[in-house]
């Protein structure tokens, strides 16, 4: 039983961090119809900045700086490289491919800088743990759950109660109608990209924190695990991203935890498990857990 609770908490914590990443995917997709393949490298950029700045600025200062800079880079990416798609919805496909290029450039440069090092972000949790009955959980993981809950709540509120959120939702429903109603698509889009960048930088800190040994050049690849989460949640649905992330996090932790019992399913089942879950969900609900039903008038 202890084992099961352990796995459950691991999974929840992992899911909470994935949710920050998946939410970034979703926000960008909603605002611009682009699947951002450069999200992993934005995450790596955020983590790298926190790691190199924390000596001078302290952890909180470094994190704040990293969040701002990553947000600006993401926003600039949208403004400078992905222009021209505001009017033509088909451009989103081209821009999706552009993000792959941006990802390669960013990752190559960051990997060169990081080299083979394991960078620490100077986070305040260190390797301390909290005991909850018979279960032990790393403080950094508890912090991840708490911070993710607060941030995700704030983002949801942003969607629901602000003019920008309304504009974003309008734009994702119908680009043309939104423009006609006076929604400034460019600004809505750019802010969405900035928000996604900020979330990625935040997630990086938790992905590099204690149970992991630090930030490495490959940390960005973890963002790919949030991909199935965003897709099975329904790509354009923030609550879907949250539910999908928790599902993927739990799947991963349970499959890794019960690896020896799952040997019948073949070696390395842990790697495919998130995708297997995604396929299963999509088989039952082709638009994802919370995806919009594509109503087409005939």
């Amino acid at each position, binding site marked *: 039983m202890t084992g099961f609770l352990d796995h459950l908490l691991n999974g929840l914590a992992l899911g909470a961090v994935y949710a920050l990443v998946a939410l970034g995917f979703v926000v960008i997709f909603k605002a611009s119809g682009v699947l951002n393949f450069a999200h992993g490298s934005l995450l790596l950029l955020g983590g790298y900045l926190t790691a190199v700045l924390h000596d001078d600025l302290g952890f909180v200062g470094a994190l704040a700086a990293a969040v701002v800079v990553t947000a600006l880079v993401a926003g600039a990416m949208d403004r400078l490289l992905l222009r021209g798609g505001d009017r033509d919805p088909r451009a989103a496909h081209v821009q999706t491919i552009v993000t792959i290029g941006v990802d390669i450039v960013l990752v190559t440069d960051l990997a060169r800088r990081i080299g*083979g090092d*394991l960078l620490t972000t100077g986070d305040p949790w*260190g*390797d301390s*743990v909290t005991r909850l009955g018979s279960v032990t959980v790393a403080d950094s993981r508890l912090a991840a759950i708490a911070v993710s809950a607060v941030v995700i709540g704030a983002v949801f509120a942003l969607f629901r109660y602000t003019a920008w959120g309304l504009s974003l939702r309008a734009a994702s429903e119908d680009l043309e109608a939104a423009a006609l109603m006076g929604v400034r698509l460019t600004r809505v889009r750019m802010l969405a990209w900035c928000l996604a960048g900020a979330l990625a930088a935040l997630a990086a800190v938790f992905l590099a924190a204690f149970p*992991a040994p630090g930030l490495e050049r490959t940390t960005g690849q973890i963002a790919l695990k949030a991909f199935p989460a965003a897709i099975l949640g329904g790509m354009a649905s923030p609550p879907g991203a949250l539910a999908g992330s928790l599902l993927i996090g739990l799947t991963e932790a349970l499959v890794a935890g019960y690896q*020896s019992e799952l040997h019948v399913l073949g070696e390395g089942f842990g790697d495919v498990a998130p995708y297997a879950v995604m396929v299963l969900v999509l088989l039952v609900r082709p638009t994802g857990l919370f995806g919009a039903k594509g109503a087409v008038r005939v």
Partner: protein
Amino acid sequence: MNTSRTSKTLLASALAALLIAGTGCSSKAEEDKPADAADGVRTGPGVTDDRIRLGALTDLTGPYATLGKSIVQAQQMWADETNAAGGICGRKVEIVVEDHGYDVQKAVTAYADLSTDVVALPQVIGSPVVAALIDDIERDQLLTFPQAWAASLLGKDPVQVLGTTYDVDMIAAVDFLTRTKGLKKGDTIGHVYFEGDYGANALEGSTWAAERAGLKIVDQKIKATDTDLSAQVSALREAGVKAVLISAGPAQTASLAGVAASRGLQVPIVSSAPGFAPQLMKTPAAKALEAMLHVVSAAPAVSSDLPGVKKMVASYEKKFPGSPVDSGVLSGYNAAQLLGADLKKACEAGSLTREDVVKTHRSQKNADTGLGTPQNFSDVNRPASVSTYVLKPDAKAVGGIVVAEEAHVAPGIEEYLNS
């Protein structure tokens, strides 16, 4: 008739390309024939009257960039030292370095480019790279020292795995646990390992040794991108393991030790040699590593008292101040020295052709560079050495690690190799 003109142009250019390629080949073939140099030494590709060219297929931009840089620098240092002392066979030594970034496709291209004009490869990084090139290397008879230690690389004349293979290391690791950590019949040990040749070969060794000692192995397969081993640690604790073996990268070792310590799984951990890097001693897991980890390795620690190692470390630190002194420095320098000895001997026998360099290499039964234990290259199906050191992390030491047990042959290894 636009299309037919296009296809004619295409045909013509294809023919021209073939012609050029054809002449290129034929002129090269003549160049490659062994010939006697002015000093009477038979030479082949890579050797001229005044220089010997060696090649390195390394990773300077991919996941093993740190290791690659260490090996390149260490071997360059050897080349400089050798040349300062007059070179080999009256010729200057030159190492051509090609970076493949751990991309097999790039490595194949780089090999094609490199292989025509070198006599041996003192460095090839990456098991998948070596696996992709092994047939070409055999055809070209290009003496190669891979920086990979899977037993599957044995059995090819020109490919020389230096030191022990991963399975032998893990047999020694199980022996270390039963001998010093009180593990006994019926106990369970975990083995966390990377997918691929490295992990599979290590698991082969640990499984064999565990069976021999009456232990049970619980295995946990992971990927290079798994850096948070919380779930694995939970599962190992559930299984009631008394010790854990790990055959992965440094990041995974750090996570394993850190998580295990924080969850009260205070058991000894023994890692394969590639699972440790000096950088780990700067992470939050350093304390846990010092308390729990041992590393089994065919090479001594760089902080070892061996005079050869001390001298090398001193020159390396002088030549490359600020570069970490890791196991790559030692293994790279060692490989270069062994190759240097092969070349010297081949020269004395009067031939520096690739085939003769390989033959000379295989005739060495007790090659000792003073950087560890002597190696025997005469049996192509056996690891060059079977004795292993046990090392222990120590943040204060050079390279972050010290020798805990001197080199010895673990019991059972002969039995394993003959089985």
